[in-house]
């Protein structure tokens, strides 16, 4: 099972070490991690995508709540929240292949941020599904470089029961 943890933490130095260190030392794998400010300047939101069995993920949430600078931990389900990731990807494409790559980019609403004689760099955002299909489509041309922000997510409003706060 794959889960997005939305973790609200006090905006202190060292908090990220506490959070990421907990995953490492308890043997939980992080697939992606993204951190950034929230509407409250004293609070940072850390989004972590992790894989594991359901009871393991539950254990992670409970361990996270024991961290002093953690204010809130929510486990977001994929189908009831909006998830987005920003991807920058450089695809090998000379003048012959460029049109094909641009066509794919267009189909996915990805914008072109750079074109060279031998490559095209695209910027794409979307949910997990969308970015995965795009990357798969681009792979056959050869991806020379890629950077991803990691998943961020918010629950759909009006579906707050799906925030699944833990007992």
């Amino acid at each position, binding site marked *: 099972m794959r889960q997005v943890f939305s973790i609200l933490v*006090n905006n202190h130095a060292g908090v990220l*070490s*506490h959070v990421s260190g907990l995953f490492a030392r308890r043997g939980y794998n992080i697939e992606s991690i993204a951190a950034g400010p929230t509407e409250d300047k004293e609070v940072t939101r850390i989004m972590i995508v992790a894989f594991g069995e359901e009871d393991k993920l*539950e*254990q992670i949430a409970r361990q996270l709540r024991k961290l*002093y600078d953690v204010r809130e931990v929510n486990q977001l389900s994929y189908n009831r929240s909006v998830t987005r990731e920003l991807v920058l990807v450089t695809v090998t494409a000379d003048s012959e292949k460029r049109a094909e790559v641009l066509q794919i980019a267009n189909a996915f609403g990805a914008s072109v941020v750079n074109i060279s004689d031998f490559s095209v760099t695209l910027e794409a955002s979307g949910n997990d599904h969308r970015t995965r299909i795009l990357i798969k489509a681009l792979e056959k041309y050869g991806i020379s470089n890629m950077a991803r922000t990691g998943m961020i997510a918010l629950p759909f409003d009006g579906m707050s029961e799906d925030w699944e706060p833990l007992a």
Partner: protein
Amino acid sequence: MELSGSQIVIEELKANGVEIAFGIPGGAIMPFYDELNKSKFPHILTRHEQGATHMADGYARVTGKVAAVVTTSGPGATNIITGLCNAKMDSVPLIAITGQVSSPTIGTDAFQEADTYGCTIPVTKHNWLIKDPREIQRVMREAIRVATTGRPGPVVVDFPKDIQVAMAEYNPRSPAAIAPTADPISYTPEPDTKAIDRLIDEIGRAERPVILAGSGIVKAGASAELAEFARRSEIPVINTLLGLGGFPGSDPLFLGMPGMHGTAYANLALCECDLLINLGGRFDDRVTGKISSFAVGATIVHVDIDAAELGKRVVTDIPILADVRDALIMLNAHVKKKNRKGWLTKIESWKRDYPLQYDRDGSIKPQYVIEQIQEVSGGNGIYVSGVGQHQMWAAQFIRFNEPNSWVSSGGLGTMGFGLPAAIGAKVGRPNKETWLIDGDGSFSMSLVELATAATYNIPVKIAILNNTYLGMVRQWQELFFDKRYSHVHYPTNPDFAKIAEGYGVRGFDITDVDQVRSTLEQAAEINGPVVMNFHVNQEENVWPMVPSGAGNDEMQLGPKDAKKLR
């Protein structure tokens, strides 16, 4: 008023009930030590920083109060990692103040610089690096609150040298500003009344209930409530290693310790119960054995103050997130007497059939020494152990009758814990006779603290059960590695009695079983620390035993009788 950073720390220690510090000064903590001295804050100078942490740990375990550990930067701070980890594993509060190089030089690999903050994250409940003297008051209050509330644990405050001398406005009465945090770090949830009702129902229905009481009972001060609960509902009580003392060892309902070296009757009760009520224990792997054969078929109830412990290792039918004392008070208001004669009779027959025992063959048996310590001390002392065979024998053969009378390293199993912990315990409760039961291997790891016991004349009675082996490892090699003994023998142990004399401590060397009792009696009369080097039987093993990875039902009762329990 304006005070220096060091003065603010000391004021806040005093204001928050910290009465003593254990530590060693060094370059990066000198301004603080200067103020410590000026303020006459009680301080015990140890010989190793690790010893200071175990002293604070032993002190906390017998008093329930938090002590400070003070070290310098770099090696001073890294030397306390084991002590912090030990306290974290056993949920013991302590606050370490570590010197740090001056703020501007942090990150430059300065002399005696170590990343104390980074190093101590995984071994503390929380830690702080002070960057501004104006933060000190808030950080100190938070630190002591975090250490002592909820599930207790150690905290570290890393204190750069320039901040120690920097001045800041200090108002002792300013309200404590506490940073917002998720609840579990320090709050005590109300027990869920529905879950309590369900438990009451289950108790009414159960034919073969058993209580597994952990150290949460001792920490929550819930011994009286536990005794009332067990006696009213007539449910037998098993105490975990760290829970010993939480229920009177002399009570007929007491079944001793469970698990790897527990009593056969405790393990049989765990195997055959239909209702298991875990009160403030954490289902450690040494307790449960193989999970798939643990309390099979029983309804499992778990009361714990830490939500992360509920369901962590054992699937729980009724989890109750609460301070165990609150839960017991609610239970006691409703629980009814029920006749459990059949179950209790069965347990009595197990007690008769499988008592704790050992052969007497004329050599000094370690179990015999422990029994004699129990008799000479009247069972009312404080008993401290190192880690190994002697620890298990002490847990088996001492009848603890009151809480906070047993100090032992459970979760981390820290050899060398004994002597400094005993010193800390004696400092915490000077009116209690304090007996350290140690092994030669364990004692050797921290015997340097004899100097501390001598300097401050801290009268701990030290019984070394000297078998010239790392006995527990030797036992495992004998049983599970076909007697291929690999590096477990100390044939040239020093003469511990002479070592003691070298430190200015009375030393006894005991080679004859007839000298055991008289030596202990003599030691009890001496007003000062005493070392007794008992040359015990070298091949004695701890029985019964559940082999590592096996189920509690696969317990072996003894060497000749290698058959399983059931």
